[in-house]
């Protein structure tokens, strides 16, 4: 169990060793990075097999043997283990395989892996900040290294926004520390009901939400999204939209559950989520090219996620996790399809005849994204609607109204695209200016394979709905269980408390 720590240590070590090793042998350096990823996956699968009890029980690992709250701990439960597995797997899937890729880019990818694993596993507020900053620096550099002038400018704007966000987050952490005198999440959670349940606590939540929200594409701080996704390669866009935004969301939700008991925090998230849905979907509707449409629809989907997590109780957790997981696989697959479909939407006219298989995959994916039964996306949205309807409060009622409206807008722009794809070649001449054509490229086999396996996975989930929903229930109950978190990190406090209650 203790070798979970290697998930952070090995990639970090590899990140700094790779440029050195590359001086003597480039091939060795590349193998080093890949083998670290494979070792990480093996470690997690091993832990999962070894301890079947992780399903019901979490484990806290004290680093270096110093027990919390003085020491720093990693907290391993189902959801953090699942995302820790998703990190190396997705980095491997979207690994920049080009021969021309410089070793520096591989090194940054390893840095990204290390910090993403650390972010999801860490049980210490300040560690979360450090890993978040590391993740941010790795992603700014990965965007800028793409070489084009636009990528550097987009990355700089991203950097300004991200740094202001993380300064805000640091301020939030400072407020929490002055109120409680600790930074350990479990200890904070123990103190939160009396010390953070006030206006200062709410303020620090808002500050942390601003900071993490930059990565999570939260409403007011997401203007970097279309610029960055438009200027980087589809692989990196898929990784950022699919994985990194979800990691930030999960960390926000964990902090929300553990530290901030006040209902205003949930309402704040609901409002920002609804704003995200509206703005994202409306701008996606106006988008003129496929990548931009995907970027804005991703903002809209993340808004739905925040709306779902803002529903108190387990129903909201289930809906949120379902949408997160669903979007985490569907959006990268769509970005992989976008590699072949760069350029104006009008350019895609008649593309269904040239590559029928890719268009078929596209239709399956967007049907699930829209929430057409019986695909998994429908069940995710269904849970969201049921959760919203069980709450009273005007903001949730507004949410119930917004979700179908957003769905109608999505249908409008995605089906318009499908119509263009199935148009006969002859019709296009009138609308298309020959100057502004980007030659249609073909899809890479790898991208198509990813999209096809995602589509197959969606259909498999439809066939295995019962086990999937059982898993979802256990994930949700574990994520929303504060007492389990506290008692896992401090076994002795738990027993003392039980005795005092008796």
């Amino acid at each position, binding site marked *: 169990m203790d070798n979970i720590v290697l998930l952070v240590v090995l990639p970090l070590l590899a990140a700094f060793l790779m440029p050195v090793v590359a001086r003597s042998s480039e091939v060795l350096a590349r193998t080093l990075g890949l083998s670290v990823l494979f070792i990480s996956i093996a470690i997690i699968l091993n832990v999962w097999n070894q301890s079947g009890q992780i399903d019901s029980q979490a484990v806290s690992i004290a680093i270096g043997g110093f027990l919390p709250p003085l020491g720093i701990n990693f907290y391993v439960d189902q959801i953090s283990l699942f995302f820790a597995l998703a990190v190396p797997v997705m980095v491997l899937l979207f690994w920049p395989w080009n021969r021309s890729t410089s070793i520096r880019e591989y090194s940054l990818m390893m840095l990204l892996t290390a910090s993403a694993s650390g972010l999801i596993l860490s049980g210490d507020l*300040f560690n979360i900040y*450090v890993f978040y*900053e590391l993740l*941010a*620096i790795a992603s*700014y*550099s990965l965007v*800028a290294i793409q070489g*084009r*002038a*636009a990528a*550097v*400018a*987009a*990355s*700089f*704007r991203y*950097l*300004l926004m991200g*740094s*202001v966000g993380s*300064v805000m987050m*640091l*301020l939030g*952490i*400072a407020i929490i*520390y*002055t109120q409680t005198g600790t*930074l350990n999440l479990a200890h904070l959670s123990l103190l939160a009901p009396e010390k953070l349940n006030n206006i200062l606590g709410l303020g620090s939540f808002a500050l942390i939400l601003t900071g993490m929200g930059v990565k999570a594409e939260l409403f007011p701080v997401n203007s970097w999204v*279309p*610029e960055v996704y*438009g*200027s980087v390669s589809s692989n990196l866009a898929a990784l950022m939209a699919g994985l990194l935004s979800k990691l930030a969301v999960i960390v926000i939700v964990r902090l929300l559950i553990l530290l901030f008991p006040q209902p205003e925090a949930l309402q704040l998230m609901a409002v920002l989520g609804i704003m995200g849905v509206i703005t994202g979907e409306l701008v996606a509707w106006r988008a*003129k*090219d*496929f*990548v*931009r449409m995907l970027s804005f629809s991703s903002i809209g989907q993340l808004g739905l996620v925040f709306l779902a997590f803002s529903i108190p109780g387990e129903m909201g957790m289930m809906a949120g996790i379902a949408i997160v997981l669903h979007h985490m696989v569907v959006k990268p697959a769509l970005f992989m399809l976008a590699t072949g479909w*760069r*350029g*104006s939407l009008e*350019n895609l006219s008649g593309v269904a005849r040239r590559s029928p298989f890719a268009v078929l995959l596209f239709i399956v994916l967007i049907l699930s994204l829209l929430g057409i039964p019986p695909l998994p996306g429908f069940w995710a949205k269904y849970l969201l609607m049921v959760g919203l309807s069980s709450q009273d409060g005007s903001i949730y009622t507004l949410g119930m109204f917004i979700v179908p409206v957003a769905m109608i807008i999505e249908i409008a722009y995605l089906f318009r695209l499908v119509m263009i794809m199935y148009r006969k070649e002859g019709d296009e001449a009138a609308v298309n*200016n020959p*100057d*502004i*054509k*980007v030659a249609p490229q073909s899809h890479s086999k790898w991208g198509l394979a990813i999209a096809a396996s995602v589509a197959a996975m969606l259909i498999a989930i439809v066939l295995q709905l019962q086990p999937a929903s059982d898993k979802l229930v256990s994930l949700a109950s574990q994520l929303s269980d504060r007492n389990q978190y506290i008692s896992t990190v401090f076994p002795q406090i738990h027993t003392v408390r039980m005795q005092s209650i008796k």
Partner: protein
Amino acid sequence: MPAIEVVLYSGAIGLSIIGLAGLLLLNNVFRMLLALVILEAGVNLLLILSGFRLAGVAPILLPEQMSNLSAIVMNDPVPQALVLTAIVIGVGVQALGLAMIMRIKAQYGTLNMLKIREQLEFDLAVQSGVATPVSAHSPVSLASGRERQLSNHKDEQ
């Protein structure tokens, strides 16, 4: 609250506000980065102050102090450790930002955020094929050509 603490806190908060205002109001990317530096300094100072005791000593126990532990006032070392980390991270981010500014200046020839943003939007539009590539080889000068194309692009929308 002693007067000295009021001064210290208002200094830290003032620095943060100057930094934020600079980020919002300035238009030169280099100055924006400097405003970010000031903002970070302000927040770091706030963090340090949260663990600061006016009569406090460094949190190191000496043998002769062991006897009267309750009489010693110590500064809280945790915020200091945090700020040390935050400063290092901040320096890294600022260096990265400066390197990017140099690349931007070399490629776009301007430090004005509005112009950079305009060109960025335009480059993205060209790249994704929804705007005509600029007539870089045309007799019209590059800048005016870009502006014309931009206005055309807007008209289309």
